[in-house]
């Protein structure tokens, strides 16, 4: 099994359906169910949620600029590290990602291994 990073863009934070506390809670339960499934299959390594604000540091002068870095629908909201056989397998793991209905996107990237 190899490590892959699932990077989540946009999704529920911009959906009008999220006006209802009940809907929010139900949506969160879907995430829990997804993570639980990944854990049971031994695929889940770790994950973090990111806050929307931040800083950019760039150039030789280490210039610091403010976020936001992108439109909110493109904003990275968090990531998982998962285990999969290959890229295709990793893509399959995203099938239960709950935010597709809110036009969320998942970027699937293999984590580079150091070959000795």
């Amino acid at each position: 099994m190899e490590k892959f990073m699932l990077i989540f863009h946009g999704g529920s934070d911009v959906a009008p359906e999220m006006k209802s506390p009940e809907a929010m809670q139900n949506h969160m339960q879907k995430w829990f169910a997804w993570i639980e499934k990944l854990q049971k299959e031994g695929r889940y390594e770790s994950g973090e949620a990111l806050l929307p604000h931040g800083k950019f540091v760039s150039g030789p002068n280490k210039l610091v600029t403010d976020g936001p870095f992108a439109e909110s629908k493109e904003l990275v909201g968090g990531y998982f590290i998962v285990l999969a056989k290959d890229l295709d397998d990793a893509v399959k793991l995203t099938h239960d990602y709950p935010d597709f209905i809110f036009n969320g996107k998942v970027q699937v990237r293999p984590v580079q291994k150091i070959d000795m």
Partner: protein
Amino acid sequence: MAQPPKNVEQLVGHLFRIEAGKMAAVLTRLLGTEHFDTAEDIVQDTLLKAMESWRMRGIPDNPSAWMYKVAHNKAIDWIRTEQRKTKSVLNDQRDAEVTSDPFSGAEAVFAEEEIQDSVLRMMFACCHPSIPVESQVALTLKTLGGLSVAEIGHAFLTTEETIAKRIYRAKEKIKEQKIKLDPPSVFELPQRLNSLLRVLYLLFNEGYHSSSGDVLIREDLCAEAMRLTYLLVNHSATNLPKVNALMALMCLQSSRFEARTSVSGEIILLENQDRNKWNQMLIQKGLWFLEKASTSPTLNEYLVEASIASVHALAKRFEDTSWDKLIALYDVLLEMKPSPVVSLNRAIAIGYALSPEQGIKELQKIVKLEANSHYYVALGNFYLKLYNYDAALTSFQNALAKTFHTPERELIEQKIILSKQSGLPNGTDFPTAL
């Protein structure tokens, strides 16, 4: 590394919704009713933050405390920004000192024991007598019940726009009348409490006497009404006989929830309900609240209605129902709250206590129920008992023309078939289910 999220089951039923109501109350108390919308925005932001963070990191050990901390910080941020604005305009040292007070205020209102108090004050504000009743109901559900405008619209079979307008009107009144989140004075309390109880009663009734199909949402309305009434019962200032009477009524009525519909969603009438399915715990609670309510020196409609519900709850079988007691209670209720629907129920009780003929006679005395399907069903039922199938058929056909409620229509259609087949001698009754 993030801890793996905890089990799905660990999150309490309606945590978000309930906490949304509490936070709205706390924040409105802190920021003032003129910043109602800001308080709502902070609640919304807080829930979003909780959802976004918890879904990947799991639920914190104390989810409510987590939310309050976030809401508290957001409120302080907002106050700071507002102060900066004021300062730059006034640039007055004294003024800044005065407005820095809310920080200590924030700690106070977020204290555990103050939260319930804020919710209670918010209930009184949402149900202020100067706000139109339908707006009171909508605002209470929105702010304290944590329901979205769409969900309320769904529950009341109306559009989102209508509900949004009602809420807007309520907020305008609150601004106009400068309604504060202060507890009502001793002098004000009876009137303010009446207004509040009425909203809770309407809320419960809307859920209980379904006029739409969506069972889940309707049971939620009842649960919400009960939860808020229970808060009143639990507070020393509002633990009054009348409040206990309403609580008793709600417990006794909801004890029959399970037995009222079949697995496939058909209505089961009081007469045919499996009484083993009645929730004994709720009945016991209801009777207990009823006892506390009975200490009242004066009668009130909730007490009489709860007593009526208790008569049904205490009958082991339908045949054991104490119809005489019911007639007496309906007589009292009719005097307090003259309404054709009360007359209808009284007539039905008379029909059982005395004879179907007497029942029909009483029913025929009632005016203003020409549009009520229950009225014709009751009439039809008594005709069935008298083997007068033609009159029964006419009554049931009248009834069918008055309702669009699917489960009810199905029931009436069955009755029509019965009447055409010259019926079963022991017709089922409707709407003895209160």
